[in-house]
């Protein structure tokens, strides 16, 4: 399956392997890794930056840590207690919380930014390595679920080599 000998069809697969389209047609779900929450600073949303062993062969440690740290920063921004959140809270109370019917809370705005960031990370970094991040909001903000795909297609591409080497490592 990990054909190191590239054939004609492999060439096509290789060039498109960056693309998530190819990941769809050739990959199957092999494993899921769950990054748990870090509660050491209280109940604010923060994820552990410990690098899971299952991803060692798939992605560079720094890239992974960057992703998690950026996500943690986004959540900290959403939950920040400061001038703007007080203003929002007081205004909402003064209008008997009816203002929430027409206005989006700051938290919701940041969640949209997070969703965009995760999509961008998936497209640029994770999918080419046969990985996919699930937005924590879909898992109750408990875990960052990273799905690991096993490449069944005989892609011998150089950028897909991380998955190839990952497979051979197994």
């Amino acid at each position, binding site marked *: *399956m*990990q*054909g*190191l*000998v590239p054939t004609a*069809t492999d060439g096509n697969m290789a060039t498109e392997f960056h693309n*998530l389209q190819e*990941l*769809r*047609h*050739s990959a*199957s*779900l*092999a*494993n*899921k890794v*769950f990054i748990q929450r870090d*509660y*050491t600073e*209280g*109940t604010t949303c923060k994820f552990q930056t410990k690098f899971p062993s*299952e991803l060692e062969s798939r992605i560079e440690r720094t890239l992974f840590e960057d992703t998690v740290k950026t996500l943690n920063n986004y959540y900290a921004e*959403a*939950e920040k*207690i400061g001038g703007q*959140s*007080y203003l*929002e*809270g*007081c205004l909402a*109370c003064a209008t*008997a*919380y009816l203002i*929430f019917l027409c206005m989006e*809370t*700051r*938290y919701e705005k940041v*969640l949209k930014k997070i969703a965009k960031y995760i*999509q961008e990370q*998936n497209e640029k970094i994770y*999918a080419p390595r046969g990985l*996919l*991040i*699930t*937005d924590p*909001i*879909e898992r*109750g903000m*408990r*875990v960052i*679920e990273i*799905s690991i*795909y*096993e490449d*069944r*297609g005989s892609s011998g591409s150089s950028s897909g080599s991380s998955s190839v080497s990952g*497979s*051979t*490592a*197994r």
Partner: protein
Amino acid sequence: MHLGVSESMRECEYSQISTRSSTPMETPYKKKTSKKRKWEIFPGRNKFYCGGRIMMAKQTGVFYLTLVLILVTCGLFFTFDCPFLALQLTPVIPVIGGVLFLFVLGTLLRTSFSDPGVLPRATPDEAADLERQIDVANGSTGYRPPPRTKEVVINGQTVKLKYCFTCKIFRPPRASHCSLCDNCVDRFDHHCPWVGNCVGKRNYRFFYMFILSLSFLTIFIFAFVITHIILRSHRNGFLNALKDSPASVLEVVVCFFSVWSIVGLSGFHTYLISSNQTTNEDIKGSWSSKRGKDNYNPYSHGNIFTNCCAALCGPLPPSLIDRRGFVQSDTPQLAPPTNGITMYGATQSQQSHMVSDTETERLPPHPSSSSRAASQ
């Protein structure tokens, strides 16, 4: 060609993944045969109305009683006492009463109808992953395993996180499982039958505003009904005053008995907010100094003002249970071991390649790429 045939065969089995939705492998081929919304298959004991927009506990009888009491008392006040008071004293009285009444009603409905902060149950993969970790930690399964807990140090205090057998998650700190609603609720305060819902992270401020404004409203009505009776008795005598305005008697009785409990409750919750504790924690004495000299509340911000501001004016977290979303019947899961794919990381190296029945005939059990290349 050998490879081409195998590819086309495999294509039919695979599901697609799309980055648009963050749940991987959404198949556009398969039509969504059931257009069910997530609230319809919600596992907890909750009632939903208005297409999932309104969420309440199962027992709502007492909530209707609360509503009736408030509406009837205020209705009587505005109908029988306000005209007299507006004429004799000032028309500002019914205006203030009206504003208070609307605020009370608004906060009550907001408390009762919103999601208190329910934590969704674990997906099967998540639950299996946790089970595996617990088994590894526990060692042999020859005896009955001890209760599952995880210890974490928060701001210097050791907190035990308990495993919830119903929801199959380790409860975050301050979360608790409500047995009436059968849900784990984040920052669980208590289950209030008067509002017909749990009080948790997302609706605590509404609950507090409700009891605070209700205290003011009760005292307001009580004070002005008494004033009304007194003013009337100056004119016509006490008994005549009561005969002229019988509704006032009912109002006084209701307000008198409510004021003690509601004002008391408001005071208690003001104390809880200023010390950043939940009712649950206070009752159990989790952060009481009686437990030990070094026992303190790790969640408190230090001063009363910050605690109050954080609880009442802090950011409102979103609902984690997507009530109005559609059920995706084809969310991919890791297949159980009988199908080939296993989730056990330790033995992944060997077993991850035993991926499917059709694969085994082509793929050797050992991940040997050279033999594969050779077979071509």
